[in-house]
Structures are given as C-alpha cells and as structure tokens.
C-alpha cells in the first residue's frame, strides 16, 4: 500500500512538471520550487555524514590531529563570498583547491593531446584511414584563426567544415535519441509502475 502511495506521489509530481507543456501553471511552479528545496536539503545530511564526520570531526576530536584545524578554518572562509568587504578571504580555499591544476597539465597533455595525436598517426592503409587523416588535418587547420580563411587555404578549410557538419549531424542524431530515451523512461514509469498497464 505504501509503495502504491509513493508511486502516486511521484506520478503526481511528474504530471505537474509535464503540465508545463500546455502552459505555465501553479502546479508546475509548486513542483519546480519543491524540487529545488528537496535537492538542496538532500545534500546537507549527506555531506555531514560522508565528509564532515569522517574527515573533520573524527580526525580533530577523536584522533587529536589538531593540525587539521588549519584546513577546516580555511574551508570556513568560503562563507565570506557573500560579504562585500571580506570576500577576499574566500580566495584562500579556492586557491588551495586550484593547486591541483599543476597535475592536470602533464596528464591532460598526455591523454587529450599526445594519445589523440598518436591515434591520428595511423598508417594510411585504406580509403577510410585516408579520409580520417584528411578530416583531422583540415579541421585543425580550420581552428587556426590567425590566418584568413581565403584562397587555397580557405578551400582546404572548407573540407574541414564539411567533416564537422557530418560530425554535428551524427551528434544531433544521437542527441535526439538521448532526449527521447529520457521521455521513454518517464512514460515507462507512469505506464508500468503506476498504472501497471505493462508488466
């Protein structure tokens, strides 16, 4: 019985959101504001249990690692973001977090650039690998905006544009599939779990 009531609550809220498709109305607004509130409230106990207790409370008060008072105080400085006079204090926790960008430089250079370049340098054994090579080079040339895209250079770059159009077309096709899938999921919930029309 409880599960039936829960499903109907979820179904009611789902239909409130769908009602926006007809026009904006109080049911939709109520659901929207409720969603924001519940989402915000959800993170508070979770952060308390999963982050504050194991990484701040326990080390400080049970294990007596008092040096961790320093990062805890630096973390508290976040709240000064909203104070016009003291918001410079909030730069310290941000700066500490940004430090890890140093690790990102060599590692993303490797993963995003070098490996991709290595992958592009394949032997041109057939028409497909030739097409991939031409496409990659012409697109990279397209993104070089320091030279005007005119004359022969412009014609070469045009090939890159055609490749990108096909790529964006493929992405659009997949995007349609993704969005429809999300709707199918909700309809499946309404039809299967709430109305039990399909089992």
């Amino acid at each position: 019985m409880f599960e039936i009531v829960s499903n109907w609550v979820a179904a009611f809220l789902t239909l409130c959101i769908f009602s926006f498709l007809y026009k904006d109305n109080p049911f939709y607004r109520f659901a929207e504001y409720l969603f924001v509130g519940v989402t915000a409230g959800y993170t508070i106990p979770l952060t308390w249990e999963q982050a504050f207790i194991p990484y701040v409370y326990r080390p400080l008060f049970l294990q007596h690692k008092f040096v961790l008072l320093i990062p805890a105080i630096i973390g508290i400085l976040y709240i000064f973001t909203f104070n016009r006079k003291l918001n410079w204090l909030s730069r310290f926790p941000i700066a500490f977090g940004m430090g890890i960008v140093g690790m990102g430089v060599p590692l993303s250079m490797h993963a995003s650039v070098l490996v991709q370049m290595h992958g592009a340098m394949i032997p041109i054994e057939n028409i497909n690998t030739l097409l991939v090579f031409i496409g990659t080079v012409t697109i990279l040339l397209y993104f070089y905006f320091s030279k005007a895209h005119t004359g022969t250079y412009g014609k070469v770059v045009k090939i890159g544009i055609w490749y990108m159009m096909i790529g964006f077309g493929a992405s659009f096709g997949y995007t349609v599939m993704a969005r429809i899938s999300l709707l199918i999921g909700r309809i499946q919930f309404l039809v299967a779990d709430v109305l039990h029309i399909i089992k």
Partner: protein
Amino acid sequence: MNLFERLQKLDRRWIFLVVAVAIILPLIFPFNSKTYTTDPTEKLYRLIDSYAPGPHEKAIEKDKAVLMVFTHDASTMPELFPMEVAILRHCFERKIKVFTMTFIPSAAPIMDYAINTVKEEFPEIKSGEHYVNFGYKIGALALPIVLGMGEDIAEAVDIDAEGRKVSSLPIMKNVKNYNEMNLIMDFSGSSAGGMWITYARSKYGANVGVGVTAVMAADEYPYLQTGQITGMLAGLKGAAEYEKLVDVFASNPDPAKREFSRELLKDPKWDDAITNQNIQYKFKQARIGMNAQSVAHIMIIVFILIGNIGYFITKYKQKQQG
C-alpha cells in the same frame, strides 16, 4: 493561407501531443523487433566475460574484477540504469567479481537500487563475496581514490557502503589493485571516463569502458579508436544490445553455449524477447524502450521533412509573388 502555411504556423502543443502518443502506444502495445549488436558493445561484453572463472575454477579465487562507477543522477537513469542492470546481471550470472562506487551523492540510491533489482533473481550472490558496494565517496576524494586504487584498493577505499573494512572482505582475496580490478566501467552523462582515462589508464594501464548517454556517444569515438576506451554502451541502444548479449550467452540455459559466437547471435529465436514472458521486464526494459524509440525517430524525421517541404514551398511561392 494554404495548407503548408498553416502547417508552418501550427501550435507546438499539437506537436507535443503527437510526441506523447508516439511514445505511449508502442509501450502499451509491445512488439518484437530485432536488436543489432555493434562492435563497441560486443568488445565490452567479451572483455567482461573473459573475467568469468572457468568451469573448474572457484569464483572467489578468480583474480579479475570489474569496477562499476555510477557518475550520474536520476535524470539520466532511463538510458543508464538498464545498462547497469544488464552488466550486473552478466556479472552475477557468470560469477564475475564486481565492485560499485560513486562520487555523486544522488547516485548512491541508484546504485543500491540497481544491485537490489538484479540480486533478487540471484539468492546465491553474497555481498562481500561476489560483489561489494563501496558506496558514495565524497567528490573531493575522487582523485586520491582513483590514484590510490592503483596501489592498493582496500587502503584507498577503506570502508564499504555497509561500514565494513574492505581489506577484511573475502572478495579481496586475490584482488589488490588495477592489475586485478582490470576494467573500470564509468556510467556517465558527462565527461565519460575522463578522470579514469587520464589517471587510471595512463598511469596504471587499467582498461576503461564507458556507458554513456547518447548525447555523448558520438564524442567518444576518437577514444575508442585509440584504445583509451575499450568498449562503449551508447544510450538506450547500447543497453538494449547488452541485454540481448546477456540473454543469448551469459544466461543461456545451455552452459556449452555461454561463449560468444556470431552464429548464435544471428539465431532469430532471440528476437522475440519483448513478448517472451520468461524474460522479466526489468531485464528487457531497454529493448521495450527501443520500440518507442523507433517510432519516435520516424516521427522526428517526418517532422523534419514536412517542415522543410513546407519551408521550400512557401519560399518558392514568395519568390513567385515577389
């Protein structure tokens, strides 16, 4: 105003109604349709299947394992949940060791739900022995855990979702780091596998597979080609493909037919899954959804064609008048 001009000015709420009907009807009146599997899905399936213990091997002694990372929230569940269920079902059928974890708080209940959904059908599967849910780990710890698991998983993760020390669990007997937990499956609605490719694969050589929403699938092909991603499940279609592979092989009642074979895959008897009452709804959800997907795609294509025909006719008429 002629027909095409009126069609151009159609209130979009009529379009919304057509979309709703196009999706509801195939779900209420299911029909069988053939699912064609693609190379990225098959590669992934075969890699995971290779982790299964042999006929004379004890499952607990096997040293290979899969890590499933849930990096999404409820909004992308319709695409990602069926593939998570399919992979868990595969692992439980073939007694493949599987770990689950997430760095997103809202994914923790989804993880529990996926495990419980599949576990219902496998009463012999025990937590701590065949699978472990590492639970939610705070986002700030993602990188230390990703890197730490390259050295020692039990030390990096420390405790599981049930509060047990990971090092004390029987499943960890022959599993120390990425050498054993060799495949990481990242289910994500954005930046699929990014952190795992950059750190776990680059530094420790772990295999990375991704389950992505269809929006991201096209962007992952360069990583597939370079081998940075071993396999990919793309949206609802990827989930439907994996469901079919699990039906055909992993849960085949004949143990001799559990190895991947293209001949068995082509057998038309596997195309009636949707109306087959022996296959539970939860294990064919994606395939049922693909029916509605089919109708919706045709509908969108028709919309594009009608819109463009109307546009060109209207433009031609205006040119003639002007």
